């Protein structure tokens, strides 16, 4: 019995180790250097209803640079250098309901000074210390991860990441200890190293990891493992170029909470073969997974201010998950929860597409033509063709619809049989990313408020003679 428990424990350890990958598991981490860092001033507040807020630094001997960030929207609202008195900063903005944070750093790197911070004319911080080491990180792609390690004794970092336009694109206090970690939502230029407080300043090393490998997760339902592995998707995906663990039985928790960072949001592409319904599918253990529930789904790293995970593409070989609910209106995209929206009170309801680029699936039922007509079921071929098409560099949508075509052809090829209907393929996408292939998974993620955050759908319908 004891031996059994030990064996079981080892097995669980092995399994957990094998399953809990992240998107950088197969990538090399590089050291940028060792740096001394000082405090970045910050101030958090909430807004209950849409209102105008003015934030201003005052009474400083230094030069402030201020950012206003929305934690609710995970985006910078505004930034300012010298809009206030002298070298002070000032931001006035109309804010929607939500939580916000203000960061104040020194314009020059590691030039510590003190200042007051006023919100709507009321002093909220009295002579707080501000500084920050401004580290130029060179030309890097989106999805590059930066983190601080080897912190000096008693120190604690608090870091910001800026893009090439000096806009704030993410921040983090602690990740796996007292160090910080931020993943670039778009091409980064500066990593601002700060301390959590006056008393936690010190030195640290800064490292970065480029997300050079494309990762995917292949999930099966309770009857479809062989359609995901063994003769189909997993076997035909080029494992030499892509990192993956193995085909897994789908579970609801792979798409929620922190677990999704190691599963759905730990990869670029998720492929699911299971039973499905409008905006949902059924996991291997028969639990319904509502993908479009705003609080419950994987949706990319914009749901975190440091963007630790980021799923770009998802393929549902399921019935009706990607249902085009209306061809003549757009409201269903928001009602169903695909598209984020502003509510009447100015607050935001987040949708599934919060970092996602393209979703493909079936508008109709997905019909599996069994061995009564084929030597193998048609979805085996469909999965295989999809993998091959992706490997061949086709766009996500073309790879998907062409896989269906090829499987249909395969069926007709065997019997020359009319009316073999495998289903109507469909796709919902961010318009500028509609034709992306896997090679473009590092393109900028768009979210509500971005000019490129608008949607489209596609569908394949066919007629038999």
């Amino acid at each position, binding site marked *: 019995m004891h031996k059994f428990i030990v064996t079981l424990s080892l097995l669980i350890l092995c399994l957990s180790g094998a399953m809990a990958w992240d998107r950088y598991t197969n990538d090399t981490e590089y050291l940028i250097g060792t740096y001394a860092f000082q405090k970045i001033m910050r101030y958090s507040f909430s807004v209950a209803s849409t209102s105008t807020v003015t934030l201003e630094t005052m009474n400083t001997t230094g030069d402030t640079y201020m950012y206003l960030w929305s934690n609710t929207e995970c985006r910078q609202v505004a930034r300012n250098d010298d809009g206030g008195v002298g070298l002070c900063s000032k931001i006035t903005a109309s804010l929607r309901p939500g939580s916000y944070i203000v960061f104040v750093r020194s314009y020059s790197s590691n030039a510590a000074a003190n200042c007051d911070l006023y919100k709507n004319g009321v002093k909220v911080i009295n002579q707080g210390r501000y500084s920050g080491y401004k580290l130029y990180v060179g030309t890097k792609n989106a999805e590059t991860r930066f983190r601080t390690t080897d912190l000096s004794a008693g120190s604690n970092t608090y870091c910001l990441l800026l893009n090439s336009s000096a806009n704030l694109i993410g921040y983090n206090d602690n990740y796996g200890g007292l160090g910080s970690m931020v993943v670039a939502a778009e091409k980064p230029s500066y990593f601002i190293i700060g301390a959590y407080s006056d008393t936690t300043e010190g030195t640290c090393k800064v490292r970065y990891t480029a997300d050079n490998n494309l990762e995917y997760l292949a999930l099966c339902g309770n009857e479809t493992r062989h359609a995901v592995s063994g003769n189909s998707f997993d076997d035909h995906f080029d494992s030499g170029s892509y990192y993956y663990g193995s085909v897994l039985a789908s579970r609801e928790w792979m798409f929620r909470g922190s677990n999704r960072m190691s599963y759905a949001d730990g990869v670029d592409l998720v492929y699911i073969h299971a039973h499905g319904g409008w905006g949902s599918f059924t996991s291997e253990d028969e639990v319904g997974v509502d993908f479009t529930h705003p609080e419950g789904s994987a949706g990319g790293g914009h749901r975190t201010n440091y963007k630790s995970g980021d799923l770009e593409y998802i393929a549902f070989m399921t019935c009706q998950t990607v249902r085009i609910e209306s061809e003549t209106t757009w409201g269903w995209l928001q009602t169903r929860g695909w598209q984020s929206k502003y509510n009447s009170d100015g607050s935001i309801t987040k949708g599934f597409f919060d970092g996602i680029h393209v979703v493909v699936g079936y508008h109709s039922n997905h019909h599996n033509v069994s061995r009564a007509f084929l030597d193998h079921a048609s979805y085996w071929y469909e999965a295989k063709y999809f993998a091959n098409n992706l490997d061949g560099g086709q766009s996500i949508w073309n790879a998907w619809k062409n896989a269906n075509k090829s499987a249909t052809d395969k069926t007709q*090829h065997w019997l020359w049989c009319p009316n073999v209907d495998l289903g109507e393929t469909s796709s919902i996408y961010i318009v500028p990313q509609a034709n992306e292939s896997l090679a473009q998974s590092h393109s900028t993620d768009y979210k509500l408020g971005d*000019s490129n955050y608008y949607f489209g759908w596609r569908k394949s319908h066919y007629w038999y003679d």
Partner: protein
Amino acid sequence: MKQIVIVLLMVMVAVSANAFDISYSKDIENELEKVVAENDALLKKIDAKLLKEDKNTILEKQEKYKKDKNRVMNKYPEAEEVLADKIVYVDNRKLKGIKGRKNVAGARYAASDFIRTIIPDVLGEGEDLKVLYVREDYGADQEKDDDGNILENVDIKTYSYSVRIGRTLYGQPVFDSFASVDIDADTNEVISFDLNNWKPVGAIDETALKTLKKDMLKKTIDKRLDAQQKEHANVRHVDVKNVIMGWVFDETGDALEPAFVHYGTVDEEETSGEILEKKYSFLEMMEGSTGNTGKPLDEKAQMLSDDETATTSAESENPDKSIIKEE
């Protein structure tokens, strides 16, 4: 547990012989030259991703076509048959029910016409093209006003059509032969095509097909069944195609796995009856073996008509039992 096994036999035999000469009229000579020229121009427009060998194959076909045409015209300067006899079959009655905004009919015609154009000997006597299906790729993108607000207007756009074209010979489908043509919805121009699954005319023997007797095939099958097999076997269907398939069914009617999968080819010296016997001996072995190793008794029956059949045969010989159970 006693398992009732029913064997469903579908025998489909198509036969082949030499291609027949095609005669052309003087009137169409210029037209044919024009077609060839158009083909050359069209090839230049074809997606650069197309494999070079595909282009070469087509060019070879065109060269052969030119030679054949010259040969025929030299031999039969008085030829009256016109290419119009080989018109593409498009049955507009099939178009009912299609939404008005979809130009499916145009796509069907454009694809069929393209096949007729690019394969010079696409149709011979007794042959006809048949559109298997048309797939429309369409959708809509949100539009925004000058202030970036998303408009309610939904402008549905059709991007392309994919047309699958098969071929019939004396009303029977020419199995294992279809072409895929993708048509741009705006211009009705071919944007890509795939002829990898197109069987040339010379592979079909019209004479043998004409003389094939279905009743004789049924009788031969019945003759080959022994008493025990007759208890559990039910020959439900015999048809004339160039493939033989059979499945083992359980008592619920669910197909367990293919009893055999085999393409039929007919040598000119053989009769259809002899061929059927040999193929049936293959079936007999499969039925007699519950393990279903799939190995035919007759090597002749193993003749495979193409690589696709070879792949399928190999798969049926090594069925993954766990997978079959799971499904």
